[in-house]
Structures are given as structure tokens and as C-alpha cells.
């Protein structure tokens, strides 16, 4: 029988295997023909998944729930002691299972999806590198290792967004993601530095052990948490650092599914949940998180209603769902955030892969106005997409219902207004998702006849991952089946070793209130579906073409509130103007002059000194003797 403490000794294999895959594929790229690199990559990820699964089962039998595994002492210079340690506890196991499990499905999907790409091998090398970094991120036992993984996934995200780098627009998207993340990372780095100066350690356990010395809203803790929050905002695409995520859809669709829906973008949520004890001491920061989450959830949902690119709709819905997770974090119910993160990983990965399957079937078409009537032709895709849509909209008994409901209940317990706003966002989610579903799968096909003749259901490599994810999207909710239905809230209890919720999960709410709220939300959802059905199927309304001028609000929404333009006007243009007009002068007159004169002076000195070196040996002897005398004098007389 494998015991937890025994199997944990091999935990280092989990991030190392995909990294080895990256190295193998990169170095033997020329030898790997056909699907072989995809198979290698998937095999290694599945090994990681298997080890994670073994650890999970071993852990549930074990009394010890959390083990720190020391790999080697990494940095040991003076006061700076940073061991390379992995932390295996419920939270990291939860994340490892998502990353390696969903990652495996997406890897398999990609074998079919990317097969005809000329950079097939490179793609899988990057995907494996990403998985390794993400696993390192969630397994690190201190903030520095977390940061290492954080930067690793950022790099892979950049590489994969710009994977089709021959398209300039895609390169711009990659650059935007990179810059936005850099802003977040700067905050994160500063947070880490401040953490180190405050606690003299970067280990999670070391930091948390010292927290009893601080009072709530202690200014240092607040600053640290705010800095960490900036990092999380960048990675998890929250206001104001969210605009990169919709652009990131330029990458291949499996990348959007893995990186920009299921895993990397949740790193910010993981960071805050991991630091739950730290954030509990900073209610001020929690309130800010709540506000940001709420605004982002609503803001992104409204934009989603008017998008016509299938992947853009999903991208904004991701931003919006991440907003819900932030709401949960802000309410202090970290376990609900992780619960929603888990279910979201299932149904959002499924939605993206489904979108990928559709795009694949339509030979690259992404505009929903040119789709329609695909229900018959892509039955598996349709069915799985439907399940995912029901899940994300929050219909019982699909997974999204339970996770979203948990967040909304906690919101109601805090303040009914937050609940109302949250519900409003959920209804909008329901609307744009059904809009998408109806426009894509119902009525008549609106593309070219040529496209129509090519439509075909995707091969098994693509459809099997869809089916598995669909099953998970249905049953995922039972992971944390709420007590009100006679469940045990298993996941929340499981996670309680790693997380300390600030508020208890709506514990002080009357059962009847909870039932009424659920009934209300389901009723509203049904009404919204009926509304969308009437609008898009009965009346066959279509989103207007790009050339038709829109009314004010639709125009505002379909142009994403002009946030990109605003940032451009506020930051990019002044910066460009400054660098074109002011900086050249400053650079020439102040910086260049200082640096140059330093250089020139040194050169001049070098020239002078070189004269000494004339080759005259009696001068050499003279210099040596002078040196001896000089040293004797300063030592004997001073």
C-alpha cells in the first residue's frame, strides 16, 4: 500500500516530467515525425496526472494532510535562505489535479487539432513547458518558487499567443499580454521583497506562523496584500489589467482552453487563496478585491453580449467568471473561489475545445454570424457545448450551479445588494451563452456553400476529450455538494487544511432563505433562456453586420467600452509623445552626456596611464621600488 509520506517523495516528478518532455521535444525535434511529439507530451502529462492522483488517494487515507518536500537548498547567501521545497497539501493537490488532468485532455485534443500545423513539435514543447511551470507554481512551498512558475507560465503564454507569429496582429496581442502581465508582476515582485523584509522568510509556513504578531489592517500587511493583488489582477485579467485576455485569443484554441481559461489565469486566485491567512488580516484589501471582482464580472458580461467572435465571447465570459472568483475571495470564502475555479476549469475548457471543434469544422471561421444550423452536423460538439452552456449559466444540477450558488449565497449573507448585482451578472452570462448557442447551432447555416460542404464532425482525438469534460461539467458540482441538499461540502472540508475562510460559508442563513434564493435565480434563468429563444430562434434575429451603424449602448458595448482606446489615449499616446519629443532631449543632454563624459574621462585617463607603459625597464624597476617605499611609509608612519 502506498502511503502518503512515501508517494510524496516522488512529487518532484510531477513538474519534472513535462519539463523533460519539453527538453526531449526541443532537442529531438528533427527526429520526431507525425504525431510522435504530441504523444510524448501527452504521455508525460498523463504520468504527472497519475502521480497526482496517487498522491490524492494516498492523502485521503492519511492522517497527515500536508507535507513539505525539500529538494535541495537553492539559495543560501547570508540571511537569504531559500530552500527549493514543494508543498503537497489539499490546495496544491486540487490545483495539480486540474492542471495535469484538464491539461492532459487538452493535450490529447491538440494532437488532433494541431496535426497539420507546420510547428506541431514546437507547439507541444511549449505546452509541456507551460504545464511544468504551472505545476511548479502550484506546488512551490515558498513565494519565490511560486514566482518562478508564475514567470514560466507568463513566458509560455506569450510564446503561445504569438504562436502564429507570421501574423503581425497576433504578435501585438502577445506583446500586449506580456506588457500587462509585466505590470502585474512588478507588483508581485515588490510584494515578495516586502514580504521578505517583514518576515525574513518567503516560506508560506514561515510567513503564516508569524502572523499572530499583527493586528487586522496592519499597514504593512495591507501594503503587501495590495501588491500581491496587483500581481493577481494582471495574471487573472481583472480590471484594470484585463484587456490582454480577449486579445490573447489570437493563440491556437487549445492554448486558449488550457492557459487562458482553465489554468494560468486562475494563478492569481490561487495566489490569494494560498495567502488566505495573510489576506484575512487585511479586510481593507478584501473589500477592494470584492469591488474589483464585482465590477469586472458585470463589466465583462455586458461586453460579452455584443461580441460576434465565438472566442471573444468566451474570453469575456472568462474574465467575468474570474470576476466571480474574485468576489468569492473578497467575501473571504476562499474555498468557494477554488470550487468555482475547479468547475470553471471543466466547463470553460469544454467551451473552448467545443469552439475549437467548430472552428476546425468550419475551416477557421470564428464569426458567429456566419455559422448556424450546426446541431445536426456536429452532434457530439453540440451536445457537449449545450452541457457546458447549461453549466456556465448555472442550471441545476450542472456544476456551475453549485459553485456559483455558493458564491451568491455568501454574497447575500454579506449584503443583498451584492447578491442582486451578482445575480444580474449571472443572468447576462446566461443570455450571451444562449445567444451563442442558438446562433451557432440552430436555424440555417449562414456561411458559404463551400464551407457547408466541408463541415464534418471532428475525429475521436478531438471528441473524446470533449465528452470527458462534459461528464466532469455535469458531475463537478458534486465535488462540493452543499449541505442543504444533504451533501457534505466535501471539497470545502478537504481544502480546510490549506485555507482559512474569513467568513463562514453562509452558515448563519436560514435554510428557507437559501431555498427561496435558489428558486428565484433558476426562475430568472429560465426566463432569460426563453427570451433568448424567442429572439434568436423564433424571430431569427441576427447581430448586425459590421457596416451597419449601431445605437449608442450597443456600440459602446461592442467596442468594449473603448477601454483599449482609453488606455491608448491615456498611456500609450502620452508615452509615445514623450519618447519622441522630451526623452530625446533629456537623453542627449542629461543621460548621454553624463554617461559619455564618464566614458570619455575614463578613456582619457586610460590614454594617460598607457604612457607609463613605454617599455622602459628601468622605469619599471623604479615603480616597483617606489611602491615598496610607499607601503613602508604608510605602514610605519600612519
Amino acid at each position, binding site marked *: 500500500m502506498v502511503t502518503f509520506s512515501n508517494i510524496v517523495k516522488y512529487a518532484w516528478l510531477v513538474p519534472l516530467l513535462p519539463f523533460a518532455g519539453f527538453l526531449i521535444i526541443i532537442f529531438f525535434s528533427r527526429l520526431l515525425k507525425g504525431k510522435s511529439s504530441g504523444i510524448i507530451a501527452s504521455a508525460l502529462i498523463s504520468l504527472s496526472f497519475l502521480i497526482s492522483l496517487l498522491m490524492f488517494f494516498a492523502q485521503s487515507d492519511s492522517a497527515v494532510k500536508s507535507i513539505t518536500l525539500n529538494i535541495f537548498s537553492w539559495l543560501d547567501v547570508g540571511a537569504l535562505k531559500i530552500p527549493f521545497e514543494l508543498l503537497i497539501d489539499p490546495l496544491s493537490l486540487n490545483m495539480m489535479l486540474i492542471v495535469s488532468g484538464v491539461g492532459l485532455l487538452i493535450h490529447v485534443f491538440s494532437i488532433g487539432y494541431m496535426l497539420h500545423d507546420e510547428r506541431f513539435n514546437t507547439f507541444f514543447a511549449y505546452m509541456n513547458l507551460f504545464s511544468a511551470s504551472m505545476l511548479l507554481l502550484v506546488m512551490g512551498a515558498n513565494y519565490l518558487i511560486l514566482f518562478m512558475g508564475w514567470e514560466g507560465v507568463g513566458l509560455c503564454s506569450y510564446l503561445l499567443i504569438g504562436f502564429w507569429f507570421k501574423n503581425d496582429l497576433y504578435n501585438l496581442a502577445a506583446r500586449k499580454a506580456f506588457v500587462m502581465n509585466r505590470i502585474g508582476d512588478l507588483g508581485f515582485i515588490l510584494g515578495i521583497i516586502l514580504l521578505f523584509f517583514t518576515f525574513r522568510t518567503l516560506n508560506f509556513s514561515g510567513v503564516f506562523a508569524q502572523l499572530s504578531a499583527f493586528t487586522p489592517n496592519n499597514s504593512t500587511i495591507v501594503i503587501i496584500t495590495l501588491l500581491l493583488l496587483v500581481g493577481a489582477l494582471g495574471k487573472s485579467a481583472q480590471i484594470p489589467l484585463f484587456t490582454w485576455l480577449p486579445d490573447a485569443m489570437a493563440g491556437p484554441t487549445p492554448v486558449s482552453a488550457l492557459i487562458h481559461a482553465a489554468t494560468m489565469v486562475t494563478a492569481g486566485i490561487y495566489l490569494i487563496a494560498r495567502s488566505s491567512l495573510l489576506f484575512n488580516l487585511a479586510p481593507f484589501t478584501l473589500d477592494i478585491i470584492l469591488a474589483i471582482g464585482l465590477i469586472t464580472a458585470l463589466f465583462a458580461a455586458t461586453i460579452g453580449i455584443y461580441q460576434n467572435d465565438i472566442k471573444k465571447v468566451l474570453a469575456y465570459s472568462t474574465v467575468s467568471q474570474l470576476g466571480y472568483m474574485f468576489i468569492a475571495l473578497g467575501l473571504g470564502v476562499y474555498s468557494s473561489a477554488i470550487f468555482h475555479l475547479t468547475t470553471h476549469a471543466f466547463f470553460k475548457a469544454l467551451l473552448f475545445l467545443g469552439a475549437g471543434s467548430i472552428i476546425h469544422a468550419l475551416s477557421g471561421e470564428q464569426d458567429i454570424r456566419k455559422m448556424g444550423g450546426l446541431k445536426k452536423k456536429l452532434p457530439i460538439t453540440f451536445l457537449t457545448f449545450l452541457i457546458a452552456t447549461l453549466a456556465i449559466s448555472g442550471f441545476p444540477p450542472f456544476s456551475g450551479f453549485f459553485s456559483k450558488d455558493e458564491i451568491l449565497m455568501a454574497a447575500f449573507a454579506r449584503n443583498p445588494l451584492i447578491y442582486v448585482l451578482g445575480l444580474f451578472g449571472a443572468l447576462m452570462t446566461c443570455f450571451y451563452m444562449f445567444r451563442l448557442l442558438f446562433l451557432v447551432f440552430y436555424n440555417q447555416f449562414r456561411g458559404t456553400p463551400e464551407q457547408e460542404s466541408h463541415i464534418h464532425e471532428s475525429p475521436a482525438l478531438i471528441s473524446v476529450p470533449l465528452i470527458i469534460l462534459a461528464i466532469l461539467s455535469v458531475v463537478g458540482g458534486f465535488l462540493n455538494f452543499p449541505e442543504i441538499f444533504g451533501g457534505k461540502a466535501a471539497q470545502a472540508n478537504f481544502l480546510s487544511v490549506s485555507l482559512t475562510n474569513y467568513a463562514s460559508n453562509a452558515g448563519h442563513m436560514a435554510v428557507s432563505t437559501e431555498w427561496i434564493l435558489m428558486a428565484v435565480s433558476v426562475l430568472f434563468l429560465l426566463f432569460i433562456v426563453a427570451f433568448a429563444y424567442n429572439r434568436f430562434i423564433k424571430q431569427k434575429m441576427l447581430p448586425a453586420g459590421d457596416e451597419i451603424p449601431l445605437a449608442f449602448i450597443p456600440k459602446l458595448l461592442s467596442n468594449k467600452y473603448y477601454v483599449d482606446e482609453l488606455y491608448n489615449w491615456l498611456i500609450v499616446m502620452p508615452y509615445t509623445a514623450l519618447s519622441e519629443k522630451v526623452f530625446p532631449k533629456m537623453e542627449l543632454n542629461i543621460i548621454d552626456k553624463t554617461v559619455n563624459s564618464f566614458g570619455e574621462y575614463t578613456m582619457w585617463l586610460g590614454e594617460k596611464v598607457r604612457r*607609463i607603459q613605454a617599455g622602459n625597464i628601468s622605469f619599471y624597476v623604479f615603480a616597483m621600488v617606489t611602491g615598496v617605499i610607499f607601503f613602508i611609509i604608510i605602514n610605519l608612519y600612519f
Partner: protein
Amino acid sequence: MRLEDFLLMRHELLLTLIAIIILIAEIFTDDFKKQGIRPLSIILMAIVTIVGFLPAPTGTLFGGMYQATDMRLMMKNILNIGALIVFIQSASWLKSDDNQNKVSEFFLLLISTLIGMNFMISSGDFLMFYLGLELATIPIAALAAYDRYSNKSSEAGIKLILISALSSGILLYGISMIYGTVGSVYFDKVSVAYGATPLQIMSFIFFFTGMAFKISIVPFHLWTADVYEGAPVNVTSYLSVVSKGAAVFIFSIMLVTVFQNIAAMWKDVMWITAAITMTLGNLFAMRQNNLKRFLAFSSISQAGFIMLGIIGGSELGMAAVVYYILVYIFSNLGAFGVIAAISNASGGKENMSDYDGLYKTNPALSLTLTLALFSLAGIPPVAGFFGKFFLFTAVAEKGYWWLLTIAVLNTIISLYYYLLPVKAMFINKAETSIAYFKSDGWTKVGLIICVAGMVIVGFASVIFEYIRTLSFGL
């Protein structure tokens, strides 16, 4: 004394043995078959280097005159590696017509200096030390004058022997004063009885002068420019790396043991000389166009950096010095190796401007040189970065903030000139860059060893940890 006690002198005995073998080979081969001596010497040296790493007993011989400790054995091994690389790098140069008849001369002279260095490092009293020092210096003068028909080469030999005679004289004078005041030449006795009387301080400074000449510390460095330029490239690289490393090793040992009583005083002396040496070395190097001279001057500046570790005086500092020399051997010999290869293949092109656009024609050599220069400049992640980092840590640990500031400033200045050749190779466009050529096997092996060293020593923290564990005790 038992016979197996001689095993303690394993390094010296083995080197003597291979010197004799080469001598015999020289006597029994015909004039036109001397080329066979090259592989023979290299293989013998490789064997000695590998055997040196086998576990060995430690202890003292001749009543304490000769001492073998783990740390000293490590130092000897490092020097062996350096000498081996120089051997390998010299192989193609020795093949030329001019050197046909003096192949074994080169190896014999080099091995004798290495024997001298080994004795010097293992010395337990001033006499053994002096003997080793002279054995390590005089043959080098002959090596510097190896191209005996070249005026520059013979000038280099003459200058070296003259200046070394002067410094030896001063050093001997210092030793005689030590004996005069203490009544013993054994290190352990001297270290106990040494005080800070004026005569003893003077004796230390005289002694210091002798070492400063070997390490080429300002103002005792002036000989280096002419000698480094005049001597053949391979001799220069040996002189600037192995010979300097040996002097640094014994000097650092003696400072913390023999002269520990006056540490406060020598630390001041070192402080000043280290700062001046770094700065002046940089100023010299900056204006050089000839890459050989350029590296020679940069090695003066490197000597200044190495002294940072000695000033630290801590175990960390000593480990940092030994580690840095190891890194320095690979980096500097890598750079010299590329320059020698290009000089041999292109008929003596050694100027910076000759390297314009080299990356296009000879990418492998360009990358090797770049790596070596990065390592010398201390750019991560190459080994040189860690070397400098540990040296700086050692100084910071002892609170020499001003010295550290000067060192960091000098690192920045050095960055400028170390990147000049890189810029020439990668960015500058040239009408006619040096054409592509194939290096011969020996050159390739030498460069591969250097590159591997720079990368492995940098990434394997085990090596530094191991050096740290070797107690610095004598």
C-alpha cells in the same frame, strides 16, 4: 620516514616522472619525428590530472617543510587542469615549422614550472616556498623567449628575468628579516612569534612585493604588458592564468596563517592595492586594440578582483578565491584559445577590427569567445558571474562597503571593453571578415573543455560547496 610517505608528494613526483619520460622520448627520437611528443605529453598530463583527483592521504613531510592538505591538493588539481588545457591548446601551434625542433622544450619547461608551483603551494617553511617560487619563475623566462628569433619574444624573456630577479631579491631580503627577528623559517613558528615591530612590518612588505610581482598587482605589474605581448600566445595564457593562480593560492594561504597576527595591517595594504589594481587594469585594457594585450591587461584587473576574496579573510572568502581561479582558468583559457586559433588560421590577425562580422563566418568560435568574455565580465548565468558574486559576498560580509562599491564600478567599466569584441563579432559589418576555417581536433578539444567548464562550474553548486567544505586549515 617511511617510503609510502612519499605518496604525499604524489603530484610533484608524477610531474617529475612525466618530465623524465618526455626527456627520454626527446633523446630517443629522430629530429624529424619530434611531433609524436605532443600527443605523448598531452596524454601523460591528462593522466596526471585525473590521478590527482583520486583520494590521497594528507600529512606533513620533512619535519613540516612540506605539507599536504585537502585544500592544497585541490589547488594543485586546479593548476593541473589549467596546464592540461594549455598543453592541448599549444598542440597545433607547436606543429608549425619554426617550433619543429623544440617541441619537448616547451613541455619540459612548462612541467618544471608546474612542479615548482606545486612545491610552493605545499610549502611549510620559507625555504621550500622560495625554492618552489624560483622553480616556477625561471623556466617561464625561457618560455617567454621561446620564439628566440623574434626580438619581442627575447625582449620579453630578458625583461621577465630581470624584474623577477629584482623581486626575488626583495623577497629574500624580507625572508631574511623574518628569520632575523623570529629565529625560524617554519610557518607555524613564524606565525606564533610574528609581531608588528617595524622590522617585521618591513619584512612583510618586502615579502608582499615578491608576491605582488607574481600576481601582477599595481605598481608591480608593469612587466606584464611587454612580456605578455612578446611571449607566444600560449605562454601568455599560461602566465596569466596558471602561474598567477599558483601565486594567489600560496599567498592567500600565507596571509591567513603566517601573517595572521598582522592581519589588520595587511588588510589595509591589500585594500589599497586591490582598488588601484582593478581600476588601473581596466584603464589599460580599455584602450587596447590588440586582443592579446587586451586580455593581458584584463588579467591585471582580474587580479584586483581576486584580492577581494583574500581581504575578506574568511573561509567563504578563501573558497571564493579558489573557486574564482577555477572559473578564471576556463574563461581566460577559452578566450585565449579562440584568439590563438584565429591568429594561427588567419596569419596573425589579432586586432579587434579583424573580428568584424566573425559571427557570420565562424559562429562556433564567436560563440565560444562570447561565452568566455561574458564569464570574464561576470554576466549571468556563466560561471564567472558566480565567481564574482561569491567574491563580492565575501567582501560585503566583512563590511568593506567602499571597496565593494569600487569593485562594482570596475565591473561596469570592464563590461564595456569585454563587450567590444562581442560587438565586433555580432554587430559590426565587414567587407572582408576572416574566412571560415576548420579548427583541428586539439583546438576543438581544448575549447570544448573550456566551454564545458564555464557552464558546468557555473551551474553545479556542488563544486563551490565542496571547495567550501575543505577546511582552510594548514
